[in-house]
């Protein structure tokens, strides 16, 4: 059955309820290079990112009336640290005892944050999709609302399989992130029965001796495939791939159809309302990062409801409970996997201006929860928490 608090606060008849404060902290890095403009050429910037603070702010704002009903006031503490002062800032923040700290940090500082906090604290990763945090580097007090790379890659693989586009040409870039994601794509392909007909690495070069790595026709020729699965973390090369492949086949992954936590054009399950609400406060479209920050505040509010109190221990237990049931605005309710702390969620497969499908795709079944067809399942997890 569905767990729920039978709470009804009669404001007129019992108005003297003390207001508990439920503080949620956001911890980011000052001058974070991740949010700096990323020009690839004079005046041309491909992937500018916005700090997802607006997402967290909106989530706290959304919880106002719920707070009225619970007698709890939700607050957001916004903290930006420098790398040098990081330890001090974190220890000051811990001392204020927020219900959770949303961490929006580069990997190195994220590792530091995980190491310098303990079982009494709760960190929610709203940014990093890397599988290491859900695997070897997981921690008992670390949860993730950002989907993992494995979940996103599985979503794409499910879609290809459901369409019968089984033969894939994997094209990836030279960076460490590209190589890690190419490995993730291979795992997803094996999991859902796709065939990687060839894996090819591109390079950003004009050197004629290496043209087989830079000439798109050569890079995509000499093989039979249904799709080109592109992995290009930086985006400068990949944008030239669609419509330029040797065979007339769609490009997916980093260009074309991609897997996202959120999309500004999503039209179902209340998403237009969330997108419009966000646009009104932030004056821009809601990104996947914003969604991860927004949903992090929402899971905390929902855990306060589940716990019936803003007491930290009780809220932390409610957050991890299988009964947690959070409206993700993606059609199903989410909660956290107990084996790696990852938020279960559907993944949107979208082009630049339309959501084409939502994974889990119909037909992919699971013995307990179809959402667990995305990302490492309990038995496959390398997280030892």
């Amino acid at each position, binding site marked *: 059955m569905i767990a729920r608090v039978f*709470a009804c606060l*009669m404001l007129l008849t019992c108005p003297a309820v003390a207001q508990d404060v439920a503080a949620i902290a956001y911890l980011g890095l000052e001058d974070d290079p991740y949010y700096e403009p990323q020009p690839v050429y004079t005046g041309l910037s491909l992937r500018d990112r916005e700090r997802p603070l607006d997402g967290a702010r909106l989530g706290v704002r959304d919880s106002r009336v*719920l707070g009225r009903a619970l007698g709890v006031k939700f607050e957001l503490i916004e903290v930006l640290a420098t790398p040098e002062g990081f330890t001090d800032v974190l220890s000051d923040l811990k001392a204020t005892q927020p219900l959770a700290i949303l961490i929006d940090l580069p990997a190195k500082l994220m590792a530091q944050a995980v190491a310098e906090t303990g079982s009494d604290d709760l960190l929610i990763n709203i940014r990093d999709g890397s599988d290491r945090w859900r695997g070897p580097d997981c921690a008992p007090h670390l949860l993730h609302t950002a989907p993992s790379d494995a979940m996103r890659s599985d979503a794409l693989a499910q879609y290809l399989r459901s369409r019968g586009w089984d033969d894939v040409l994997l094209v990836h870039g030279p960076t460490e992130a590209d190589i890690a994601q190419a490995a993730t794509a291979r795992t997803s392909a094996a999991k859902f029965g796709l065939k990687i007909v060839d894996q090819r690495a591109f390079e950003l070069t004009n050197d004629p001796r290496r043209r087989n790595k830079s000439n798109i026709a050569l890079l995509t020729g000499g093989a039979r495939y249904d799709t080109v699965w592109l992995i290009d973390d930086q985006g400068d090369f990949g944008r030239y791939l669609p419509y330029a492949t040797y065979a007339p086949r769609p490009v997916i992954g980093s260009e074309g159809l991609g897997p996202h936590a959120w999309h500004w054009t999503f039209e179902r399950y209340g998403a237009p309302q969330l997108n419009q609400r966000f646009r009104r406060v932030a004056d821009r479209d809601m990104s996947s990062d914003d969604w991860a920050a927004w949903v992090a505040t929402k899971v905390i509010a929902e855990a306060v409801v589940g716990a019936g109190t803003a007491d930290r221990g009780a809220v932390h237990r409610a957050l991890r409970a299988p009964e947690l049931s959070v*409206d993700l605005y993606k059609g199903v309710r989410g909660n956290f996997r107990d084996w790696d702390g990852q938020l279960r969620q559907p993944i949107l497969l979208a082009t630049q201006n339309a959501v084409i499908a939502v994974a889990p795709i119909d037909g992919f079944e699971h013995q307990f929860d179809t959402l667990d067809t995305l990302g490492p399942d309990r038995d496959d997890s390398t997280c030892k928490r």
Partner: protein
Amino acid sequence: MLVSAIMALSVTRNATAETGNAIVPNERGDSLSILSPDLEVIQTIETCARPRGIHFNADRSSFFVGCADDDMIAIYDTATLELVGRIRGVSAPETFDLHPDGRRLIVSNEEDAAASVYDVETGEFLTDYLTGEEPEGVQVTSDGRLVFVASEAANLVHVIDLEADAVIADILVDTRPRRFALTPDEAELWVSAELAGIVNIIDVGTLKLVGDIPFLPTGFRPEQVTPVDLVITADGQRAYVALGRANHVAVVDVPTRKVIDYVLVGSRAWGLALTVDEKRLFVANGLSDDVTVIDTESLKPIASIPVGRVPYDILIDDR
């Protein structure tokens, strides 16, 4: 605030009798489809942007259509189906209910986290009340004292006392509350919780949750069961609940709160309406762009009629 003396309204309706037609707002089609009693589309009317909630005025001589993307409520003449008025400046109206005084229309403003009250005669804005995000269903009690408003995002049912001019309770319910139905004796308020896949039952006297009805038609996963609209028959014996993406309407025995049948309808069934004799149930199927009509005695669908894009709700001119 509204002064207590409200003009007595004339309840005479034009000599024209009711047509028996069903009026269906098509949310994405920006149109109204008119279905005749023999279940044919006899007219399609271009209307405002994103029409959703639809409701008669007190004497049924006209009806209101909430135009979410035009921030207004359009008023149509029931007999001629002509636009006869507009209430402007209503932020993203979703659904509404008419107060028994026939003057006050209580509207949920989806994007403003508010329920607002308008005078339908003058179009004047009277007052508003703060709700949780995305308010949806609105239900006024027949004594005109209480208004219930569901907040989809906050999982709350707000109880507004119009005389006290205040929100007197916020009742926590299950995930994504959408619409209401009152039992005829008004002892129980039924609330659909879309993402929980259940109906919550609130005792109107104590404003406490007193029961749940779960739904699960054969062959569906729990997360596909997303109930939205619901209606209860005049004798208070039977309820119909549209189960959204489970593509069925649940038939519930009200006294025992047990599901007695599931009727297969179109895709993402939302809006419901019963004919006055309660022999037919109309179901708006948002994702198959049609309306299914169910014979309530045999509990079999008798027709599915294509309408416009994303039909949202149904109003039947037969009483």
